[in-house]
């Protein structure tokens, strides 16, 4: 199969029940792909957000696609609480693996290295240790009565994100959004949507090459213009403030969220 495919084909590795890893809003979120997953009625995802999420997690949860969420926070930032996340939590409908930002980074870094775990400072005395039975405290073997937390590696099945451009060999230009490389290195497969295709090979230009995720890690690329909308693609286009305000207002209720989806997910496509 070629690397550059349709959006629907690109999303094929994201099967029901898989562990799906996605980036924070500022790194490049594949929102059109997220809408496509909701149209496909994706179910039982174990969603990992590096290290937090906004609209993307809220929509996937609201659409009933997420069984387990592993992240450090979900909110709509300036637009207030994430309403479908909040409702799912207070309704007991979501298994939440609460974390803290550097713990998600560290656990994915462990996977990048093929290591079973990573130590992290902090955490001891936080109630997170009580709700995360998979996190352990050991005595630093090189120290003197020095407790430190070990986090098991997070090895996602698929990473999904949006980036400015890719070439026909599947090399993806991510610039300084190194979170995307962390996600791709740690995950078994990586699916990317991009704004456009680059003529020629991205690795042949030394200035561009430093910001390239090699096609080696990439399963499929789909070209989706404005694929992060209504979120921003940093340095390319800003957040659609009016749209997010509308989402925050509608998604306060399950009915409002359904109306939002009817219009923007199932009906009329992104502007």
């Amino acid at each position, binding site marked *: 199969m070629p690397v550059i495919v349709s959006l629907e084909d690109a999303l094929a590795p994201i099967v029901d029940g898989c562990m799906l890893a996605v980036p924070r809003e500022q790194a490049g979120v594949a929102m059109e792909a997220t809408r496509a997953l909701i149209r496909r009625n994706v179910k039982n995802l174990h969603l990992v957000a590096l290290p937090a999420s906004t609209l993307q997690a809220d929509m996937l949860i609201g659409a009933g696609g997420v069984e387990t969420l592993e992240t450090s*926070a979900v909110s709509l930032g300036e637009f207030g609480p994430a309403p479908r996340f909040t409702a799912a*939590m207070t309704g007991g409908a979501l298994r939440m693996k609460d974390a*803290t*930002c550097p713990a998600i*980074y560290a656990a994915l870094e462990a996977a990048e290295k093929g290591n079973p775990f990573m130590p992290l*400072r902090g955490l001891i005395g936080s109630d997170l240790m009580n709700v995360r039975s998979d996190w352990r405290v050991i005595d630093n073997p090189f120290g003197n009565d*020095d407790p430190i937390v070990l986090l098991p590696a997070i090895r996602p099945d698929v990473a999904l994100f949006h980036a400015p451009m890719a070439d026909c060999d599947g090399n993806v230009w991510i610039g300084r959004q190194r979170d995307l*490389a962390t996600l791709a290195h740690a995950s078994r497969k990586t699916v990317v949507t991009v704004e456009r295709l680059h003529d020629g090979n991205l690795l042949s230009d030394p200035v561009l090459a430093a910001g390239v995720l090699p096609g080696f890690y990439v399963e499929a690329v789909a070209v989706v213009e404005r694929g992060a909308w209504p979120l921003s693609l940093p*340095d390319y286009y800003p957040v659609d403030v009016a749209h997010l305000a509308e989402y925050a207002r509608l998604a306060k209720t399950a009915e409002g969220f359904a109306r939002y989806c009817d219009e923007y997910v199932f009906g009329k496509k992104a502007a």
Partner: protein
Amino acid sequence: MSLQSEELLIAAVADLIGDVRHIAVGNASPIPAAAALLCRARANSRSQRPPYVSLLQSRKHNFFTDGGVELFDCAGQGRMDVFFLSGGEIDGEGNINLVGIGDHDKPQVRFPGSFGSAYLYFVVPKVILFRTEHSRRTLVPKVSFVSAPGVSDPKVYRSGGPVALITNRCLFAFDKERRCFRLQSVHPGHSIDEIVEHTGFDFDRPDRVPETPAPDTQTLRLMREVVAPELAEVYPQFAEKVFGIVKAA
């Protein structure tokens, strides 16, 4: 233009920050962000080496090139001097709750989550707590969930922690030895009785508590002329409300 209450808080937070090398500010923190930018503007106006300011949501005021983890790596090494945290609940021992109230799996109230607090609170030397809503709902005797503890057992690695808590009514200093807050100053227009009434936890009260000082003319000028336009990139709504800055589309 008369002094806005936000301007008083920004100046007070800038004084708390002091003379440091690296100030980082997380999400949803317009007052701390303005205070950090004010510290930088002040140093520039005095021809001193300005502090590095990292506003996590900003494209412009953010020098990191190694992903979101670089901030936490910096903090872990002691390369971050000041950070800001808030909480859905904050208690008298400096514990903060960003997770929720009630059973974790089916809470009565759910907050967004702990973000970086369960790490940064431990390793950043000066953590300034801010919570503009000063009420018995937010400042509680004991938090329902400890996202990050105010103090730790002596054997737990801890190079940082809270130094102060600023609200819309007053400024508290944190006493690490006594594990409690001390009323440091009361903002103009507010009283000690009112603070006692609206605070859910006990705190130390010196015999004399001064009023939080209003910023001087030079500070106000820097805030309005230099800081406000910079702030508008990240917090357009706040910059417009407080400083009347309308960002060009």
